[in-house]
């Protein structure tokens, strides 16, 4: 195993800049690693090795000509199979889009290409980002590199697993209710969801439009800052894209010194939290205290409503967003349909998996005439209350600290009941409903050697402070150095 793959993206970037290594060598190292472990990890839906190497060669040429374009130039970045890349598959791990090839680039893709990143592979996920384990993928279930019998989390399970398995130094995922942070916690890597609107959603296949957001996966906070820097920026093709000055996130890691005032919500440490996770997170609290941070016990009383509100709003939006997969144009099309309506029924029956169908039915129900006010409208009101409660709390604290998940990773097939699967997201969902940024950083292991994640929630668009806070913790601990044995 080449030691290149164990280096952080920041380190590889410095080596490329110093001419110590070429992008082709780096890219080849990750390709070799992927070929060695992928059969066990199953992180990727597909890989285009020759394209990756061609991009790496182009990067080396640029650098030789003195035209390297920044820290991401020549660095492999793996992408969740939900991000549009021109001429590459875009399956969302669904039979519906099994043969779909995107004719256009997402905004994020355009940015990464412009910065010379080597786009590497399509990562497995729960179908249409609906799930917490990748077990809802129509193609395969990805494995947790720390324990191959366990799930990597989801929906961005492939994105987390590939970074944990050193198949890529960086990856992109999407987070609608915890789909970046939960798998990051399960796989012992850093995963971050930016403020809603910071990263353009153009080219992100929509699950729930008002909640979806792209974000980075990496092994260190510095790498996450580096990748985040590369994907933010206003895009006039996304009407919800935020227009603002973008800070230098990497510089902020050391510039922002604190001490911070950190809120700890009692509701996140109640019944249902795994005691080992509780202990690990409490150690993290003690760390910040020892660094001179003020720890404030806070209350987020609306937390208990987050799950129902989420499953009303997200499914309502999804039921409409997924209407376009109908068998007419580019999706799976059923054979022997009798008429247009029959074609819809059969194509959708065959093309969607059970969880996607469940959510479409739920969403259709809550939007139906006679139920709209009781479900959708009321959920919108509660969502406003949830957001207001967070903003109230943020008048007194700089950030909120919680566990990322109530439990560590679990075995494949263990959670057959959808509701118990949904409960996995109880600490992350609120953040999406409030549109806030949050990050999961490794904060230890359970006795059975499964990673534990610490979640920091920031104020809107205060990613720089949040990253600095996470960086401080990470630098004082050795969790980032642990590598899953494969």
């Amino acid at each position, binding site marked *: 195993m080449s030691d290149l793959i164990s280096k952080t993206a920041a380190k590889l970037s410095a080596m490329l800049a110093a001419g110590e290594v070429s992008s082709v060598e780096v890219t080849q190292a990750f390709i070799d690693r992927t070929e060695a472990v992928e059969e066990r990890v199953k992180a990727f839906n597909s890989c285009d090795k020759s394209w990756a190497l061609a991009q790496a060669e182009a990067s080396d040429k640029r650098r030789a000509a003195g035209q390297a374009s920044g820290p991401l130039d020549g660095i492999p970045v793996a992408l969740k199979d939900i991000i549009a890349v021109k001429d590459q598959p875009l399956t969302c791990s669904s039979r519906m889009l099994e043969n779909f090839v995107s004719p*256009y680039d997402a905004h994020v893709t355009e940015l990464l290409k412009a910065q010379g990143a080597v786009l590497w592979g399509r990562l497995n996920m729960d179908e249409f980002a609906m799930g917490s384990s990748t077990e809802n993928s129509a193609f395969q279930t990805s494995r947790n590199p720390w324990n191959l019998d366990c799930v990597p989390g989801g929906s961005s399970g492939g994105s987390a697993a590939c970074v944990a398995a050193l198949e890529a130094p960086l990856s992109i995922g999407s987070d609608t209710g915890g789909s970046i942070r939960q798998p990051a916690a399960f796989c012992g890597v850093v995963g971050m969801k930016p403020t809603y609107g910071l990263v353009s959603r153009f080219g*992100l296949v929509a699950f729930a439009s008002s909640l979806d957001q792209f974000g980075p996966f990496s092994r260190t906070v510095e790498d996450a800052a580096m990748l985040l820097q590369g994907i933010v920026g206003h895009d006039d093709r996304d009407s919800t894209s935020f227009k603002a000055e973008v800070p230098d996130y990497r510089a902020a890691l050391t510039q922002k010194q604190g001490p911070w005032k950190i809120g700890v919500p009692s509701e996140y440490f109640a019944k249902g939290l795994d005691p080992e996770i509780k202990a690990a997170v409490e150690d993290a609290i003690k760390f910040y205290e020892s660094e001179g941070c003020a720890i404030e016990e806070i209350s987020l009383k609306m937390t208990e409503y987050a799950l129902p509100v989420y499953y009303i709003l997200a499914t309502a939006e999804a039921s409409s967003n997924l209407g376009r997969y109908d068998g*007419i*144009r580019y999706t799976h099309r059923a054979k022997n349909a009798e008429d247009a309506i029959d074609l819809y029924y059969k194509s959708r029956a065959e093309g969607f998996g059970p969880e996607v169908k469940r959510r479409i039915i739920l969403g*259709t129900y809550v939007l139906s005439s006679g139920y709209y006010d009781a479900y959708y409208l009321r959920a919108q009101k509660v969502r406003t209350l949830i957001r207001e409660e967070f903003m109230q709390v943020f008048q007194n604290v700089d950030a909120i600290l919680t566990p990322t998940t109530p439990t560590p990773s679990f075995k494949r097939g263990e959670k057959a009941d959808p509701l118990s699967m949904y409960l996995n997201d109880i600490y992350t969902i609120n953040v999406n409903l409030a549109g806030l940024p949050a990050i999961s950083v490794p904060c230890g292991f359970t006795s059975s050697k499964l990673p534990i994640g610490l979640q920091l929630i920031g104020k809107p668009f205060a990613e720089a402070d949040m990253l600095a806070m996470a960086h401080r913790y990470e630098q004082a601990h050795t969790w980032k150095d642990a590598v899953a044995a494969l």
Partner: protein
Amino acid sequence: MEFKADIGLEVHVQLKTRSKMFTRAPYYYGAEPNTLTDPVVLALPGVLPVMNKEAVRKTVQLGLLCKCEIAERCKWDRKNYFYPDSPKNYQLSQFDQPICNGGEVEIEMLGASRNVMGEHRMVQLTRIHLEEDVGKLTHFANDSLVDYNRAGAPLCEIVTEPDMHNADEVFAFLTALRNNIVAAGLSDCDMEKGQMRCDANISVRPVGQEQLGTKVELKNMNTISGVRNAVAYEIKRQIHAVMSKEPITQQTRRWDPVTQVTSKMRDKEESHDYRYFPDPDLMPVAISAELKEELGKDLPELPFDRQRRYMAELDLPYTITSVLCPDRALAEFFEEALAATKGKGEPKAVANLIVNELLRELSSGEQEGSLPLAESKVTPAHIAELVVLTEEGVITKQIGKEVFIEMYQSGKMPSAIVEEKGLQAEQGDDGELEAIIREVAADPKHEKAIAQFKEGNKKAINSLIGPIMKATQGKADPRKIMELLAKVLG
């Protein structure tokens, strides 16, 4: 039993914008199928809508034109339903916060005759909202094809109150609405190109009954006259049904322009639950007072207002104004020509030349329909010069007609034509004209007419004017001929 019909319309008008409602793809009529598309139009995975501000501005203008209340804030909603002409299987529309509320459109009913202005009244509007158009399906025996060119084009829906009561009112409403919209440049409103479409809700009730009858929705009318015929048919059908004690059920009926009857498409029970909800991809829209004011300044005078002005200020007859005013381009052509006479041309002479000569020539070519005014070689300056030449007596009216044909064909200025061909009216030398008159009068075949004239029948000598004109090659002033003829005949 006497019946009263109540008719409300839903009129869809495609706005004339360069790009579609929520993406940069262009839209125009007549392109090859599926060439005016992009990932957003085709609803590929991951695309997002971006609002076309120009379409919103034009809708505000339409609202101002119809005296609607313009909302300070509106939003976009998704109307969810599955149909192959709708790429997303939801349509972006406005459910409970349209851009325009209320409003009215002035209409003119048929007058007692063509020369008399009909009664004017206001038809009340409920609302106007903006949405995106859908694609077009073409059905064959075993399959259907879909063209997404039209999908996503900006579409205004104008909803009226059930404020019309017969087919002629409906016809008058659609005509006035179209004239207003075309005048403002918001749409070309060509129904045959689908730029204007109309569904009608019709019910009947016995005169004296307060409550409206059960309404029937009518679809598939492709011309304004088609709407009139369909509404007239449907009113008769419903009255007949009520008289025969057949219950009218809430349903949608389709007009067949060939057989000229309506037939049932579906019952109300089959109607959709559209599951409207606010679109999370688009932000609500604020419409400021400043924007409203700015857009209001851009609006033209409405055709009926213009007509009243022409009749009052220019003393033009109703018949002429009812041709000039509905067409803004024609009215502006007239005003330019009038201005170019610099006060030396009578408005009526200018209007007559345009309405009688120019329009006749434009419609008489080999092309289908009328040649557009803009494509004619005749400009307002041509018209003005010709009017002034005639009024100043440089040429006779008779010669004026000849000059008009020549300038219509060649585009030469009237003065140049007159000069070139020596068409000036004879001036001063009454002797020569008198000689010609004497010669004609001496012709024995006019003996009888002259005798009648002398007996007091003044009109009898009109038969001499033609031959005299001919003898002068049309250059003589008819007034002068009359004057001299009277003298010669004593």
